[in-house]
């Protein structure tokens, strides 16, 4: 269990949310304020009263919320190392302490002079902050549980695609076809195939170095070129992106496989797949474009399954920080994925 966790340190379904992710922050703000609005409506005596009640709540909620998020942002790497149970305790304790101290030191803003029971207020606010923490953490836990299924599906999907009978049997047949005349080339092909299968069958890791994914994709292309020869051309454009940048595994290779199977293979003249990888600020842009036969009907279903899976994995890893675009033209197909630039192990998202 411990070992598995150290490999799958990120995006584990039983982990705390990543407080450095824009999506997480937005969700916390939205839900907290939503709860506050609900409270305001419950307390108010008339619709006109709601706004005033909301203001009252916000005077305490907003500073607590912003300070908590700031502190959680700072503490993120440390929180990541805690077990989930401890993490929940620490986060809740932090929020309660913050709430109480802001209430206590906030002076007259929070303690009207009418002499209401300040001990009662302390307990009440403490309790409210515990409940709110509970609701938020429970929400994130459920969300990551739902999304983490996508990761397992992804592995299955990739595995199934790898042993897509069409690819497997055709490649074996091709290797048999060259084994007498070019034994060396046949050896390389079998080695490449072993690597592809190993990757598909290995435990899913959250992020892998870009260089490895590129190498795997090149091995895959080499195998397909064995069968298709000159018909399959690949044009790599990698601009200012070092090999040790971290990206989700099996992101590029399935895109290439789609491009080959649905795009290049049915074309008698073949064509070239363009892969563009570039950095723009804190983001990494990955674009895969391929020609395809002119079609009149809807795109192939296999396409959508692979693409949906990639989208789910990106959601799980990066939430709103990853974007995704598919352009399906009359005779071309283009997928563009934009996701955070993660340059080292320390900066991994959780």
């Amino acid at each position: 269990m411990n070992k598995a966790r150290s490999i799958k340190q990120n995006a584990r379904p039983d982990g705390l949310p990543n407080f450095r992710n824009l999506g997480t922050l937005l969700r916390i703000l939205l839900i907290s304020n939503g709860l506050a609005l609900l409270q305001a409506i419950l307390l108010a005596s008339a619709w006109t009263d709601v706004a005033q009640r909301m203001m009252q709540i916000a005077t305490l909620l907003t500073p607590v919320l912003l300070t908590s998020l700031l502190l959680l942002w700072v503490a993120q790497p440390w929180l990541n190392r805690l077990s989930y149970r401890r993490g929940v305790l620490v986060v809740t304790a932090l929020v309660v302490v913050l709430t109480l101290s802001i209430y206590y030191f906030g002076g007259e803003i929070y303690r009207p002079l009418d002499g209401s029971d300040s001990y009662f207020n302390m307990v009440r606010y403490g309790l409210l902050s515990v409940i709110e923490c509970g609701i938020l953490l429970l929400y994130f836990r459920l969300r990551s549980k739902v999304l983490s299924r996508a990761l397992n599906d992804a592995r299955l999907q990739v595995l199934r695609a790898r042993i897509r009978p069409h690819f497997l049997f055709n490649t074996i047949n091709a290797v048999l076809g060259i084994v007498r005349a070019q034994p060396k080339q046949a050896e390389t092909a079998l080695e490449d195939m072993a690597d592809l299968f190993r990757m598909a069958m290995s435990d899913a890791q959250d992020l892998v170095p870009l260089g490895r994914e590129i190498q795997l994709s090149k091995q895959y292309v080499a195998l397909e070129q064995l069968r298709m020869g000159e018909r399959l051309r690949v044009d790599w454009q990698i601009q200012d992106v070092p090999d040790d940048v971290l990206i989700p595994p099996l992101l590029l290779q399935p895109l290439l496989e789609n491009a080959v199977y649905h795009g290049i293979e049915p074309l008698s003249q073949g064509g070239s797949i363009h892969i563009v990888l570039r950095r723009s600020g804190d983001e990494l842009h990955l674009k895969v474009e391929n020609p395809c036969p002119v079609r009149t009907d809807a795109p192939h279903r296999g396409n959508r399954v692979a693409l949906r899976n990639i989208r789910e994995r990106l959601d799980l890893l990066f939430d709103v920080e990853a974007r995704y675009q598919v352009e399906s033209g009359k005779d071309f197909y283009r997928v563009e994925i934009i996701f955070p630039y993660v340059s080292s192990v320390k900066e991994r998202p959780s």
Partner: protein
Amino acid sequence: MNDIELALRVFIVDDEPPARNRLRDLLNDCSEQLALDVVGEAGNGQEALDKLTEIPADVVLLDIRMPQMDGIELAQHLNKLPKPPVVIFTTAYDAYAIKAFDLHAIDYLLKPIRLGRLFEALNRARVAVPVQTEVLRDLLPEPRKNLSIHERGKIHLIPIEQVLYLRAELKYITVRTAEREYLLEESLTELEKEFAARFVRIHRNSLIAKDAIAGFEKGGDEGESGWMVKLKGLDEPLAISRRQQHIVKEFS
């Protein structure tokens, strides 16, 4: 009997060079026990038709999944050769086709191909007859991508998207492309059924490509009341029969 006379003439069609290599190697192995002669190979349908017109073969080993035209369609066109060859299909994986082949007892080889299976299939092919075009047509879930025209001993493939209209005339059907006309020996009703997505009937004797419709005009034999259709790339308009006049509304 002389073995040389009995040599089985084999032709290979596959778009992948290593797959053709493999078959050549295996045929070479077979030839130690079976008199055979590899008379040629092709990487696509048109090449196969051209070469087989020149040098006939008894058996064609034919890959199913190929770009542009798949093997089952090519087998239909091969049946128009003066002496159609026996086809043995090869495939890595086509669940649909394999089921259909089993149903119709059509011979096929699974890739990677085994020497033993190839040997058996070749032996059976000596006595087999070509699969009927009608059966092949049933096997193919999609319409053909080409029409094959037999003309002066050659078989031309006309990509279906180049056809502007099809018109029945006595025994034949006139196939009109932007460049010229061809004569085809098939039934208009069958063609209408097969290519329903692409063609629409405008007259008892003619189908036009929906994509090629350029516009409609009044006139023709029916006088003021009749409609004619203009097709892209053709000067003379075609008459629309009274019964089919609703298409004017649908397509204009």
